[in-house]
């Protein structure tokens, strides 16, 4: 029965489960999204995944909306909606429950301790995200150069990231990349 499995349902299962392991937020879960959507399920090609990442970064709103685009590619409107809610709701409800449990006045050392333990892991995951998307996006020497310049600009200046993305888009249109 797996062959005619409802795609909306498999999106819900995939992203619902993934959200529970999304340590460090949506951008840290990109390698796992890539592994599942491109390598395992063949929902998207490598190139489409890089496009989806670009569109999600270009759009305002939380980074989690990359999941909306993957869902749309798999099953249109309902796929997009289902994937987004599956990625957002379980952990939001979990956070609500934990915040009520801990209470406002609690001085438990555990949240700070767990957070400190997770920081190196989430930075490693974000680095992996950059590597995964770079493998699809940076195919020429000039493309790598654009990435490096964008990284330096974003690191060293307070420039709105939107301008950096648009500059990249213009260079792309001009045929530089």
């Amino acid at each position: 029965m797996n062959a005619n499995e409802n795609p909306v349902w498999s999106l819900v299962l995939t992203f619902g489960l993934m959200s529970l392991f999304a340590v460090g937020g949506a951008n840290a879960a990109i390698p796992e999204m890539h592994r599942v959507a491109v390598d395992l399920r063949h929902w998207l090609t490598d190139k489409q995944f890089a496009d989806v990442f670009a569109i999600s970064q270009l759009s305002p709103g939380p980074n989690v909306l990359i999941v909306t685009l993957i869902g749309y590619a798999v099953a249109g409107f309902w796929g997009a909606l289902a994937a987004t809610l599956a990625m957002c709701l379980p952990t939001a409800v979990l956070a609500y429950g934990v915040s009520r449990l801990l209470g406002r006045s609690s001085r438990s050392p555990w949240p700070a301790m767990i957070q400190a333990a997770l920081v190196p892991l989430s930075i490693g995951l974000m680095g992996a995200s950059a590597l995964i998307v770079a493998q699809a996006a940076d195919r020429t020497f000039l493309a790598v150069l654009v990435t490096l310049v964008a990284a330096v600009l974003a690191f060293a200046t307070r420039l709105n990231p939107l301008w950096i993305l648009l500059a990249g888009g213009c260079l792309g249109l001009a045929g530089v990349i």
Partner: protein
Amino acid sequence: MTLDSPPATAAVPDVPASDRQPPPGVMTLFVAFAKMSLAGFGGVLPFARRAIVDQHRWMTADEFNETFALCHFLPGPNIVNLTFVFGSRFRGIVGAVAALAGLIGPPLVLVMILAALYAHYGEIAALRRVLAGISCAAVGLLVAVVFRMMLPMVKRRDVVGLLLMVAIFIAIGVLQLSLQAVLLVAIPISLAITFVVRRLSA
């Protein structure tokens, strides 16, 4: 107090009136989060902090940091968790749903339009070139975020943390192992190390 607040509203807050505004209503929550979300290119968090703490004064900076710390140690999109918990603090579940709908709803509509356009026109050569350029820049932005986050660890010479970071980078980015499997091994190790280090330095 220049505001003509009706005396019937809630209890008198125990902080100076100039520090905190009255709790927002459901509609206000929706609109406020929609605004932050639509302003948030490359992450909503800085905009959320500015709106909640500086502009509306619904929380003090400390309260905001405390709520964020809670949402950051839990899995899932941090800003989504923060929004849901924040909304619930003021208006219960209804407030939580209203704030979340504001955060996700408007950009969701926008992204769906972009997705539909991409599905139709994604193969046009000019658009392909633009997207290729944006992808390259977007990777650069991500690299910058990684280095910004690494900076405090480098400054404190946190060698163990940096080694853990590199190990995760290799396991997930280079070897492309399953996230679940890697985290089930890495989280206990990292927790144990953090616990021991804190005990030793205490």
